[in-house]
């Protein structure tokens, strides 16, 4: 039962984060008059269409204008444009929370739908695929190498990798992606330079999967290359610090074999802060994935951001994406927090 209490606290904080971002989104849209403009534009569009249809039935130009004016007033009331944006706030919030994300202006889903929800949902799995693969590989390498480094601190390998970790932190992930494209795809022609599948994509399922893997290799490599350095360093430092603690010396004094000391007394104790390290790196990997998707034309949510900004700007998509990324982040964070509570018993009973 006492497992739940700290978890609930974390969950509440993360929910607050989510709501706060939502609030920022909606308030920013209202405050800058953006939502007004968008809604007015929508009304304008509708009126234009209706003008054409109405013009067929109403011949008198004055009557036509009056009819359109009345229609415009109707639409204004419908969209709430006759009230200040603060009055529209609760309605907008509810709409977003119920995932009614509106329609995109120019972007379309693969199947042709212009509903934002459809567009985004189609691309969500692609982003998740990229992210989780990169995260898992980074964590695996980070753990393996970090632990090895911790057994020989101060060695040349250790110094070299610490330097590398420092440099990694300063490298733009997406630029590394560009470099890889330049070298491996353009110059050496070893890998495709972008996209998720070849054109035309193979039809057989196993060939399709292989094709996907081939295309995923460079983006995942980019994400891993940049994030693994700092993570190795974090794992190494934490493991080193834990290895120096008294209970480790005690375990050795008890005659336990070194392998057991390593697994149960060093790694097991280092696990909670290492998980925290993963959490801290999560934000960076998320942002990195947005840009990496852009560079590699990977049809995920990140790439969608780019297309929405670059094309005739599609505000609905951008708002929805910001909202969803926050949601994604919050959920991932929550999962890791749950993991942490399981790993560290000291947290369970804290008030």
């Amino acid at each position, binding site marked *: 039962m006492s497992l739940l209490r700290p978890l609930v606290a974390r969950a509440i*904080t*993360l929910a*607050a*984060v989510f709501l*706060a*971002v939502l609030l*920022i*989104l909606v308030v*920013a*849209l209202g405050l*800058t008059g*953006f939502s007004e403009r968008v809604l007015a534009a929508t009304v304008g569009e509708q009126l234009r269409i209706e003008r054409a249809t109405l013009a067929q039935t109403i011949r008198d130009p004055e009557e036509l204008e009056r009819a359109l004016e009345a229609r415009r007033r109707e639409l204004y009331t419908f969209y709430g444009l006759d009230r200040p944006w603060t009055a529209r706030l609760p309605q907008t919030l509810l709409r977003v929370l119920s995932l009614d994300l509106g329609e995109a202006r120019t972007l379309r889903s693969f199947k042709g739908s212009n509903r934002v929800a459809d567009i985004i949902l189609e691309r969500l799995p692609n982003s998740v695929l990229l992210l989780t693969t990169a995260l898992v590989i980074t964590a695996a390498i980070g753990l393996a190498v970090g632990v090895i480094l911790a057994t020989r601190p101060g060695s040349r390998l250790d110094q070299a990798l*610490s*330097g590398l970790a*420092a*440099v990694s*932190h*300063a*490298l*733009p992930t*997406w*630029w*590394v992606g*560009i*470099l890889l*494209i*330049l070298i491996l795809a*353009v*110059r050496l022609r070893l890998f495709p*330079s972008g996209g998720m599948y070849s054109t035309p994509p193979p039809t057989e399922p196993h060939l399709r999967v292989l094709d996907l893997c081939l295309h995923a290799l460079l983006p995942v490599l980019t994400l891993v290359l940049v994030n693994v350095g700092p993570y190795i360093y974090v794992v190494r430092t934490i493991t080193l610090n834990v290895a120096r603690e008294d209970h480790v010396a005690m375990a050795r004094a008890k005659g336990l074999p070194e392998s057991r000391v390593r697994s149960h007394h060093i790694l097991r104790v280092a696990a909670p802060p290492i998980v925290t390290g993963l959490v801290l790196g999560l*934000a960076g990997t*998320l*942002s990195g994935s*947005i*840009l990496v998707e*852009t*560079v590699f034309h990977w049809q995920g949510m990140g790439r969608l*951001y*780019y297309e929405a*900004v*670059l094309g005739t*700007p599609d*505000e609905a998509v*951008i*708002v929805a*994406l*910001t909202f969803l*990324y*926050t949601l994604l*982040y*919050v959920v991932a*964070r929550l999962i890791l927090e749950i993991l942490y509570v399981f790993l560290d018993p000291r947290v369970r009973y804290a008030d």
Partner: protein
Amino acid sequence: MRLRETWRGLWQSWAGKGGVGLLVLFLAAAIYVLVTYPADFGSRWWSNPAAWADNPKAAPPAWTNLWRREPWVKHLVFEARAPSQVLETANGPMSVYRFPLSHPYPGPPTFLALTLGEVTYARQPPLITVSLGRPDGRSLRLYRHMPPGPRPGEGPPFRRYHESPLRVRLSTEATTVAAVQQFLAAEFGLQVSERELLGRVDQALFGVPEREGEGVRFRSLPGDYEVVVQVSFSDRGDELGLVRFVLGGAVFGVMGTDDLGRDLAQGLLFGLPVALAIGLGAATFSTAIGATLGLLSGYAGGRTDLLIQRLADIVANVPLLPLLIFLLFIVGSNLFLIILILVAFSWPGLTILVRSMVLQMRAGQLVEAIQSLGASRWRIMFRHILPQVAPYLLAQWVFTVPSAILAEAGVSFLGLGDPSIPTWGQILEQGFRTGGVYVGYWWWVVPPGILIALTGVAFMLLALGLEPVINPRLRRIG
């Protein structure tokens, strides 16, 4: 003073020395840029295509010739405000501009362009003739031009091409093409149609023609050439202020050019103080805010503490890039806004840390002792607690700078950079968006990234160098 110890400790390690060295270099370069470049470099020069018209497009840097067996043509600009010679002719004074050049390349220049500026005349406009002398002794007239005559309602002196100089791209100019046709017919006995000469005017001028089947081929003619510009004035006192002749190169400058012909060296250089401003600005403000809130939260306790803690917790968990994208998108991109948003979301980490350190110190006896002496809250916070915390603040600050620079580069790459100020991220964005990556324009996309990374590395080295200095401190407080 603790700061002096910190400095000495920093200087002891390789990393510290490297970081400080790099930083000094960057600061020196930034100061140079601030002094020599105009503040509106972005809008007046960088975004202004006229400024780059005479540069070759997408040309790699000149030093790439070092590893080429056959060097590519270097970009040559001849500019003269005063003539090499002034002759007296029967019709009036004549200024002659001579531009000798040696052309040892196996290929021709990529284009030829002439710019004339600041013409002033009393009665009749001058006649300007441009001809090319070749190493094989032949020469031909490339171009002839007379600025527009007096217009109705105008009085002397007549001024032409003062505000906007005349620029002619000779390689595609109709009269030049015709002149080349005549030249080929007269000197080599070859009839070459206009269509055949399309795009090969430079080859013809700098080469020797050879019949190849139905068409004609040009073998390159290396040697010494001379461009002669003759200006026949009708009256003494008439002037031509500016003559510029450009032989377009295949390579250009220190960093090459982008697809619009912009000198990347200038763009990259200008980006340096901008990047530093972003990094240092965002880091300084977020460190200041974070530290102050942390001090306040740890020291005041109670509801203030709770409020600040909750706020920090929430802000710390907001994903930065999506929100940055959104806000820049709807408000419009602006450098100060970028810095503002970065600061607004970077302070929580420091607050949480400073707060825990303050709590540890409060549990110690030093603070109690000072409190009993009757010092005010603020005094205690800033005169006594802050110096202890300072080295760690410095480390955080150093760590934040590269993050801020990277964040700005990231949004610029997505197309949301401040359009009036070129940044490294924007240069990268242009290189990527126009497909430069896929055609291998490495000099366009690699250097900005290297510069971003180097700036970050400088600060990371500082952070590494600071680590041994602050760690013993941490252990003392903890």
